[in-house]
């Protein structure tokens, strides 16, 4: 009940990182984000292409 009205980040702040966290490069991988970024790029390519296509309907060459 005491927690009502306070964001979890204040009542229950993120645990401090363990002592040696992040020291080895092995631990620096962020594969999830990489997937999200690739989805983003794919969406970008599709939208950009579709817009050129739409333009080609109204702006004929030749």
């Amino acid at each position, binding site marked *: 009940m*005491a927690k*009502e*009205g*306070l*964001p*979890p*980040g*204040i009542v229950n*702040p*993120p*645990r*401090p*990182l*363990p002592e040696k*966290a*992040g020291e080895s490069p092995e*631990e*620096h*991988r*962020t*594969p*999830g*984000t990489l*997937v*999200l*970024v690739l989805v*983003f790029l794919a*969406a*970008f390519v599709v*939208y*950009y292409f579709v*817009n*050129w296509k*739409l*333009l080609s309907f*109204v*702006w004929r060459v030749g």
Partner: protein
Amino acid sequence: MSADFRTCPTTGLKVHAQADRLIKANAVVGVVALLIGGIAALLLLLTRWQVVHLLPADWFYRLLTVHGMNMLIFFILFFEMAILYFASAVLLNSRVAAPRLAWFSFWLMVAGALVVEWTMFTGRADVLFTSYVPLRATPWFYLGVILFAVGALLVVAIFFATLIVAKKERTYTGSIPLVTFGAATAAIIAVITLGHGAAIYIPTFLWSLGIGNVDAQIYRLVWWGLGHSSQQINVAAMVAVWYLLGALTVGSVVINEKISRIAFTLYVLFISMAAAHHLLVDPGLPPTWKVWNTSYAMYLAVLASMIHGFTVPAGIELGQRLRGYTKGLFEWLRRAPWGDPGFSALIFSIIIFGFVGGITGVTFGTEQINIIAHNTLRVPGHFHATVVAGTTLAFMGLTYYVIPLIFRKKVAFWPLARIQPYLFAAGMLIFSVAMTFAGTFGVPRRHYDISFAQAPFDFQFSPAVDLVMTAMAIGGLLAITGGAIYIAITVWSVFFGKPLEAEVKA
């Protein structure tokens, strides 16, 4: 001196009493502007939704001006003033450099805003927030804008002075935090922005008095130096808030401090030129100029956003992984605190800003494609994804931390607060995507009546337009509900909320 400070029991930061009060005052006025702009949004939405078509023509354009000014200028800037005080005085444990001047600037901004409100509501300034010449408002309108801008410029000066005071008085060790660095880039851009603002509003003010002349093309060129740069202030401030919320909600790590700082710096270097994307169909400017400015220059500013769009989620992911959420690709995301409105607002802000706002913006910024997007509903579709679902939502998420940390109050109506970012984000997503579709069918922006009832010609949009405009209305209503809940929560918590101290002692 030390009596002027309190130590925050949650974060251990020393908070200067003046910083405290200035943040509160600016945040409260910002929320009032949001309320006025929000009421206007509802009425505009119900007018653009052709089935209801609520307002008469003159009030549509009047309230469109009211909405643009209150949302994009007053709400956002008052909130950013609060962020500047927070990122300088609070994060650096420092005093505010010139508190008297700070209050003077605050009241100057309030006075400027009130003058502008008066001119708009009395029909003396139906010129929309861009106030393109030769549309002419009463001189008071331009004067109000100038007063507001001078106030904002003074706050920016106080921000830099506070950074110097903090350094001199050694209130912090090491280099300044990334959030402060981000706010500093926003402040530098603000100086550039306000420079353009002075260059255009002063001549236009004089012109409204009958002195001199202002060329329509020059006006657009210089005005967008202000209009576009100011959006980059919002982006830089939003990204700073992303880093802050990531740290507060899940303890995200900064993957590479240097890269993040370089990305912030790119904003400063390339904004003014990127403003050309607003002028791509203007007849008075040569194609080479347009292409140069919107390709290389713009993409470097975009690159900066893409870097942040990668480093912020990666920092969250790494923070979570180092705390043990290592299963599969997405355990870090699934097991994140989705019931924390600070966290959900952060994630939705990143996603909608990037996927909807970013992709559409870069696409329309291409010289050739702009011809089919310009002045259609695709444009407001784009910027409601950036400055509303992006910046505004991030600021909303931050508010849930500002209420306990600065106002020392509990967040009222907590169960509603937990779902508020979901409502607002879902609403804004539907609203902006629907607007984008409507625009693709050619529906114009800033248009009172797309049935063209009294026009001498006959024009019919594709029947699909009715459908997307209805989707737009539904999304907009959902977002307005989310916005109303936000305002209710903030106002109630701030003025009638349970103080925290009592809770701590109990």
